[in-house]
């Protein structure tokens, strides 16, 4: 290659490289798109995956005031109203937090605004019994839209409650346990009965639901039609046992893969114990890890646990859609074992019940559940000591009707929780609801599925927003596998999900009550709120407006976000100039006048699209 050619090529390549380097520094250079692989960029980054409290302490993240940080993790998004209400709860932050938790756990019946909104949506299926759901919806094999209406309604009702309920911690825990006992809502069989499944988590009678007893919840989930269909237990009979539920019961619902020893013969009879024993909650001794034989034996123990009329074998049984144990379909001709426990022959339903009894006292289960709770509320890598503390509360209260309340409380009152920030991010669904809350949205999603006034080719606002959430990878009840949506920053910071979250947040600001009607009001009317919050026109400066929305959305004004928002809103005006925020006309000569209403919405979208909003 001649030296001239090489020099030109070298110069061009240098320019490209410089361009990407400058772009990486955020500087406008010659137009160059930063390559995914480029000099100066490390090819591997595991910092986010390894982030824990200890490493976080080393780097001080400037974050919001503590109550905002706490509320952002214990709710679907802290609003200005939340902060005001919080500050009225006591004389110090710690007293207020205790009072807040008290209120959240006591579930006083005062959620009238949210309940009215739900009532106004005219859902048909939410309060029906499994039997009623079966008859009304599951039996409908002609009209798919009508058949699947229940899950569509639960989807919408869930979003409404996450957005508007005052029982925010309850909603956070309902979301957690749905992920833990993950069921794909749109299953042809399980979907029509889905409201009954959701109701198990929302049950507030003593001992039940997400603040109740773990074993009770575990068994209620097992016996629900939706879970039965998800993991094939409904068709597991003596003549043909199906191991799917038993395997996931051990691996996903209770002991976890960490307590799985694989295809191993534990063989206690030989005197050789390859797997250690541990002490259970009732003081007895139990094998620490499960093996494949345990899965097969649990499968056998749970044969005959089915749903009335779900198969031809039970096709004429009463109360279709409800749990029933059918002894003639149960296999118990031999003694078998689960962990180190005996299941006697001919013990009927108690064989399966014992599986749940033994799992509910197992320390490995306590640790697994505690880990997941800490991961949800504190950080992706909770400390061993926190997990141990929480697991002990779980274990000690294994028979208590409020076991899960106490366990959750242990997490939320821990030092690690109270001093953490930046160890979690908002998954797209949380960012979505958090944005609705922070922007004072008035949005009641309703399904369009079985809509008699449906117009072909028209898409409702609800449809469009659920689609946006689905594109970001986090539509409710849409994860196809039983392991549930992941709960780590590594997963949710993928380019695909983070990028589509940013796309979704901007879309939210542009959404109107009825997207098929011109002039329909925005679901989050940020202009009206701005004008109302700053009634004197002369005070509607970029400095004030950006400050207002940083306060609403973030609870404070981090410098980079605030300054970016100010600059974006003011354009060629000064930060202290009063701005016109009421017109949408072209003005390329003076950008401060160019589409001012749109620019205000975009500024709000910008704040929502900041790392500070997405971190918690």
């Amino acid at each position, binding site marked *: 290659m001649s030296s001239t050619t090489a020099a*030109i090529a070298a110069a061009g390549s240098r320019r490209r490289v410089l361009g990407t380097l400058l772009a990486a520094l955020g500087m406008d250079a010659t137009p160059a798109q930063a390559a995914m692989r480029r000099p100066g960029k490390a090819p591997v980054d595991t910092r986010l995956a390894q982030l824990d409290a200890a490493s*976080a302490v080393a780097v001080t993240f400037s974050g919001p005031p503590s109550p905002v940080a706490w509320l952002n993790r214990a709710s679907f998004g802290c609003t200005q109203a939340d902060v005001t209400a919080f500050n009225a709860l006591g004389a110090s932050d710690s007293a207020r937090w205790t009072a807040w938790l008290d209120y959240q756990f006591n579930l006083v019946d005062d959620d009238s605004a949210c309940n009215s909104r739900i009532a106004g949506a005219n859902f048909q299926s939410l309060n029906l019994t499994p039997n009623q759901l079966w008859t009304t919806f599951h039996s409908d094999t002609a009209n798919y839209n009508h058949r699947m209406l229940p899950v569509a309604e639960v989807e919408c009702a869930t979003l409404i409650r996450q957005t508007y309920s005052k029982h925010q911690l309850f909603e956070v825990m309902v979301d957690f346990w749905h992920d833990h006992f993950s069921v794909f809502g749109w299953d042809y069989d399980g979907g029509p009965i889905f409201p009954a499944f959701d109701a198990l988590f929302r049950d507030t009678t003593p001992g039940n639901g997400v603040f109740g007893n773990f074993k009770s919840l575990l068994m209620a989930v097992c016996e629900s039609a939706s879970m039965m269909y998800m993991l094939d237990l409904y068709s597991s009979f003596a003549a043909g046992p199906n191991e799917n539920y038993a395997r996931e019961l051990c691996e996903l619902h209770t002991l976890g893969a960490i307590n799985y020893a694989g295809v191993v013969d534990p063989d206690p009879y030989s005197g050789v114990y390859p797997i250690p024993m541990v002490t259970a909650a009732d003081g007895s001794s139990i094998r620490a890890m499960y093996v494949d034989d345990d899965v097969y034996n649990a499968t056998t123990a749970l044969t005959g646990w089915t749903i009335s009329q779900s198969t031809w074998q039970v096709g004429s049984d009463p109360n279709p859609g409800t749990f029933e144990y059918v002894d003639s379909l149960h296999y118990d001709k031999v003694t078998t074992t689960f962990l180190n426990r005996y299941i006697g022959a001919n013990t009927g339903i108690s064989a399966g019940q014992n599986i749940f009894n033994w799992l509910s006292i197992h320390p490995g289960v306590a640790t697994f559940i505690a880990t997941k709770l800490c991961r949800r509320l504190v950080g992706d890598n909770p400390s061993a000591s926190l997990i141990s503390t929480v697991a002990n509360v779980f274990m000690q209260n294994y028979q208590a009707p409020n076991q899960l309340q106490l366990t959750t409380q242990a997490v939320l009152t821990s030092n690690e929780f109270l001093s953490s920030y930046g160890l979690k*991010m908002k998954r797209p669904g949380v960012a979505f609801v958090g944005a609705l809350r922070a922007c004072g949205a008035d949005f009641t999603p309703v399904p369009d599925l079985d809509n008699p006034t449906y117009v072909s080719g028209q898409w409702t606002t609800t449809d469009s927003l659920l689609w946006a959430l689905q594109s970001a990878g986090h539509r409710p009840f849409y994860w196809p596998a039983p392991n549930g949506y992941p709960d780590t920053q590594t997963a949710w910071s993928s380019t695909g999900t983070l990028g589509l979250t940013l796309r979704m947040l901007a879309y939210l600001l542009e959404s109107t009550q009825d997207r098929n009607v011109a002039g329909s009001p925005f679901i989050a009317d940020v202009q009206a709120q701005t004008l109302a919050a700053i009634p004197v026109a002369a005070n509607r400066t970029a400095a004030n407006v950006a400050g207002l929305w940083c306060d609403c959305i973030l609870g404070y004004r981090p410098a980079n976000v605030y300054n970016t928002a100010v600059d974006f809103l003011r354009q060629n005006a000064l930060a202290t100039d009063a701005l016109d925020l009421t017109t949408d006309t072209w003005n390329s000569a003076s950008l401060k006048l160019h589409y001012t209403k749109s620019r205000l919405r975009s500024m709000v979208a910008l704040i929502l699209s900041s790392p500070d909003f997405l971190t918690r």
Partner: protein
Amino acid sequence: MSTIQLDRRDFLKGCCAATLAGSGHAAFAATDSTTQDTLVVVFLRGAMDALSLLSPGQNHPARADYEANRDATRVPYSGTGAGLPLGATNWQLHPRAAALKTLYTQGHLALVVGAGQMAPNPVVRSHFEAQANLEIGVGGGTGSGIGWLTRHLMSASLPANVPVPAVSMGSITPSSLLGSTEAITMNSGQDFRLDLGNWPWNSADDYQPAIAGLKGVADVLPSLWQSSTLPLAQAGLSALDALSLFRSINFGTFHASSNTAGYQPSGGANYGTGGFGLQLQNIAQLVKRNVGLRIATVDLGGWDTHNGQGSPANSYDYFGNQVQVLNDGLNAFYTDLSTDAAGNYMKNVSVVTVSEFGRRVQENASGGTDHGYGTVMLALGASVNGNQIYGTFPGLASDQLFEGADVAVTTDYRRVLAEALVARLGNANVGYVFPGYSGYSPLGIFQSSVLADTVFKSGFD
């Protein structure tokens, strides 16, 4: 000025300091497709029933055992739903894989029997754990949180500047690319853009001609994330880089009235409207765009057939529906890339399928199958030595089965993937990509690429 002459070997080792100033080695520019190969890894999630995809044919020594264990889920060798014989091998493909059979006969498709994970020991039958083990690729466990494809990208001596070395189709990055900052993850090319804000203030490039000084939300976001010290900041910048890189690409399918600038597959290839097909279409589009794509991953789920798997002899054939999706998608992909006017891209593109394990030989009484062990891998490409079955089938007699229940594993899955890396992508660092995996030797599935020849000829060591 003096040129910076680099020894070819040094360049390939990626001496960043020297290449930063630009070496002008046009022959190794990221966009040169003749020196660059692409590997597409298709993960069949849920444990694909390999014995139904590839079943013993009429004269196969294992046919009797197969029929003894498979009744409701059997693939017959004659009559309705008969399998498609693969030459003289005595194997047959599922009847819904007609295009794959054609590709096999044309020499572009190979299958490896008795493939699977030889480590860890003991064997795990958990989907999620087995998938993670396969994708992290250290013989069990999560290692240091880095996937096997990430380690490949780190050790493959890629040029210092590559626009898009890897793409993973899906919302969430799979474990095989865990830790990589060089991959773009997206569920759908068409959706992967910042375009739903209001049009006046969304992005400067929405204006033709541009308005001087106007910066929309999409233009301002990078500096907002750049100035943050939060842990999430780096990931956000990566996402914004990726969005920017793909912004100018119209990933939508061509439509005569609604999308005239959309993508038109070659050769009449029809990807259909399903997610899997469209994701393969996105990959094909990127291959043709010369973005430097070395790695692509895509998932096809729904294989966990514990219940009601169906049979091709009946009208209910759930497993067959899955096979059809795989068949149609791979067929469209191959057609699209091999018949393009610019040339046969499939010479430099290889597709490999993996699944976490196979399924039990004895079907269960729910008309389905449970978790097994040994499975089958597919290798597809114009540089694949197809029309051949590789590996040693361990047999279906009860004393030949693993744990008396499953097809045993005789070929470590890493052997197939390693060969793709060595022979096609020119990366000989097998021990780095798969730590703990020793004794690698090629099965002969892949022809040696120009890049591999160049790398090894220059004395790369």
